Structure formats: structure tokens, C-alpha cells
């Protein structure tokens, strides 16, 4: 395997049915490379939660994924409304998702906490009115 494999995705913000395509593609690539299944699952869940968040809250965005022999790094960037209080958003059960999102099976306030749980390292930078950047790393060993 080469030192680093890079993937870049644009997540469309107006099509809920397509949310998850990027995560699905990364999951397949990791499987092909032969990464440990538990690591694959952590990456898949963390990225999928992030992708869903982008579609629900931010009108889409972009995701960059770097796969190295030691780790999988994901950078999710959106230009949505931003998160006013990141500490609050990290609390389980806290959500700003509208009812129509809940009727689709999301918006339980578990997304960001679950992303943190699945990552070995996660940082969230957000500016209200400008957007949010989430960086996650999952170690391969």
C-alpha cells in the first residue's frame, strides 16, 4: 500500500437520500485495503454521522480522507450556520434538529458524541454564520 491514499468528496446538501454515499465509498476502500474490521466500522460510523450532520444542518460540504498505514484522517468542512456552543453540542441528547429530521430517524443529539466515541482524536472548530470544520483521526492499530 502506498504511503497515503487520499479521497475527496463533495456532499450535496439538498438530497437526504444520497447522504452516506461518501462514507459508503470509504468503507469499501478500507475493506479492499484489508484494514481491521473494527477500525473500518469506527471510521464508517464517524464519517457517516458527520455526513448526515452536513446534510441536515449545513447544506452539504466537503470531506477529505487520508488513509495511511497507521491512521485514517477525516476532515469535514461545511459553510453552514456554525455551532454556537460546541460543549453543549457535544452533550448526548442535545439537538437543534427540526422535527422533520427526527421523522427521518435522525436528530437524537447523538451525532457529535458518537463521532467522538468512534474517533481516537476529534476537534471541532466552528464560527457562527461561517461554518464548521470537524477533524477526526482513527488509529489503525
Amino acid at each position, binding site marked *: 500500500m502506498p504511503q497515503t491514499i487520499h479521497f475527496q468528496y463533495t456532499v450535496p446538501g439538498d438530497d437526504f437520500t444520497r447522504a452516506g454515499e461518501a462514507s*459508503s465509498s470509504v*468503507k469499501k476502500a478500507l475493506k479492499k485495503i484489508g484494514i481491521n474490521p473494527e477500525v473500518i466500522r469506527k471510521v464508517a460510523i464517524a464519517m*457517516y454521522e458527520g455526513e448526515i450532520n452536513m446534510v441536515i444542518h449545513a447544506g452539504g460540504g466537503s470531506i477529505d480522507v487520508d488513509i495511511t498505514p497507521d491512521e485514517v484522517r477525516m476532515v469535514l468542512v461545511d459553510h453552514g450556520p456554525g455551532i454556537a456552543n460546541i460543549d453543549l453540542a457535544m452533550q448526548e441528547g442535545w439537538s437543534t434538529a427540526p422535527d422533520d429530521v427526527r421523522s*427521518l*430517524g*435522525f*436528530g*437524537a443529539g447523538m451525532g457529535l458524541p458518537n463521532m467522538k466515541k468512534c474517533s481516537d482524536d476529534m476537534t471541532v472548530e466552528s464560527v457562527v454564520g461561517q461554518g464548521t470544520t470537524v477533524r477526526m483521526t482513527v488509529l489503525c492499530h
Partner: protein
Amino acid sequence: MIVRDIQTILKATVLHANEDLLDSEVHTACGSDMMSDVLAFVKDQSVLLTGLVNPQVVRTAEMMDMVCIVFVRGKNPDPTIVELAKERGIALLSTPYRMFTACGLLYENGLKGGCTI
């Protein structure tokens, strides 16, 4: 238990499954209409029972490495959802039973929740 047993116990219609999928071994299941909770709380469950019908049900099952989705209350997904499950190699069943009864019947027949408290 195998997927075929679930079909029999729940008097379910098979919306998608090949022979291999019908013969897949399953040991644990979860029931939820909230995919956020499935993603956050479920671990190693191979069957998802749900009353929610949209493509993200299949995506969620895919991320969690599940092998079978059972739609309760006789719900039928549209062809795009069936197609997505086909591509991902996930069995799709539809049972006329409601959520509580469907879960209860499977539990009674040996399928467990797989979680400890």
C-alpha cells in the same frame, strides 16, 4: 438462527435476499425507528427491525455491518431502497407484525438483544 428462520417466525415477505443471505447466521438484533440511536448504541447486532422506511435505514445497516433489515407493520420500501440493499448485500424482509410483537417473537425463539446493563 438464520435469516430464513426470521422470515418464517415473522410470516415475512422477502423483499430482497439470495440463498446465501437467507442462510446467514444471526445471533442478535435491535429494534428502533431512530437511526441516530442505532448508530450510537448498537454493537455487533446483525438484524435491524424498524418501522422507518428511507434509504438511510439501509445506509445505517451498512455502516453497522448488519445482514438483515426487517420492516415492521407491513411497511414496504420503494424500489430504490430495495436496490440499495441489493448493492450492499443486505437482506430485506417485511413483516405484518408490529414492532413489539416482532421483537418478542424473535426473542422467544432465541434471538437476543446482545446488550448487557
